[in-house]
């Protein structure tokens, strides 16, 4: 297994860089999004290679959310953006299912994933060793609570703003007796 890690690293690095080049040279938006997915998957696998399970899960969730947003925006928009969805849905469904499976497996096994003593080191709760996910989440909600709150509030505001931009201004209610011209 130890000998396989460098080979895996180089294979994943090549795939990730190829995806990055794909983002750079692809002309169609769907291909750009797929290349980005390749990059995100490669980075996730690289992080899993170092037992950074929590970070890998975060990367998967953000990647899936980004692709889902692309799909949602493409579907809601009455404009040319909808062409983005054309021919992309089946691939997105397959990739989404794969991502979901990875998230489920990571959530089930990642909580007890052992660290390697190199930043994924185990910390203990009440004397019991915990996995990488628990350790990172605990750090996130103690030492990093303020930055996390600021970023999540910004994300909330950005989501509301983006929804307003996508759907357009809300129609004002018309008073009674008011005639449409």
């Amino acid at each position, binding site marked *: 297994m130890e000998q396989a890690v460098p080979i895996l690293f180089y294979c994943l690095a090549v795939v990730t860089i190829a995806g*990055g080049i794909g983002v750079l040279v692809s*002309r169609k938006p769907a291909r750009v999004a797929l290349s980005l997915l390749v990059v995100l998957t490669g980075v996730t696998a*690289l*992080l899993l290679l170092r037992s950074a399970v929590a970070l890998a899960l*975060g990367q998967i969730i*953000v990647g899936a959310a980004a692709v889902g947003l692309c799909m949602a925006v493409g579907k809601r928009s009455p404009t*040319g*953006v909808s062409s983005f969805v054309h021919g992309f849905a089946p691939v997105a469904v397959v990739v989404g299912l794969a991502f979901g499976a990875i998230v489920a497996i990571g959530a089930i096994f990642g909580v007890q994933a052992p660290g390697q003593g190199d930043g994924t080191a185990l910390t203990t709760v009440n004397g019991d060793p915990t996995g990488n996910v628990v350790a990172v989440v605990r*750090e996130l909600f103690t030492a990093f609570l303020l930055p996390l709150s600021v970023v999540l509030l910004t994300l909330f505001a950005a989501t509301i703003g983006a929804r307003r931009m*996508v759907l357009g201004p809300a129609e004002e209610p018309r008073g009674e007796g008011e005639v449409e011209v």
Partner: protein
Amino acid sequence: MIGATHFLVLSLILLCLGLMGMMMRRSFIAVLASMQLAVSAAVLNFAAYGFRLSDLQGQTLAVVVLAAGAVQTVLGLGLAVGFVRLKEASEDDAAGRPRS
């Protein structure tokens, strides 16, 4: 043996690709994807330094960076669609068509 240096080199390559994409491409989606590439490079960088310093805070900070990347994606896509709507409305006005 794969060390933090390998991750840092890969992160540098990803960052360069992202910067090149931001400067060379005109498509909004491509620029957004290039920015996401740069965010992934930052995540790898934080994780690599976390491994090297044997500190969990590198990974924790990387999670915060990921959330910031999500903000960027949401805002970028919203702006893109808003811009396309605005452009379409102005084209309709110019052509004298009623707005849908």
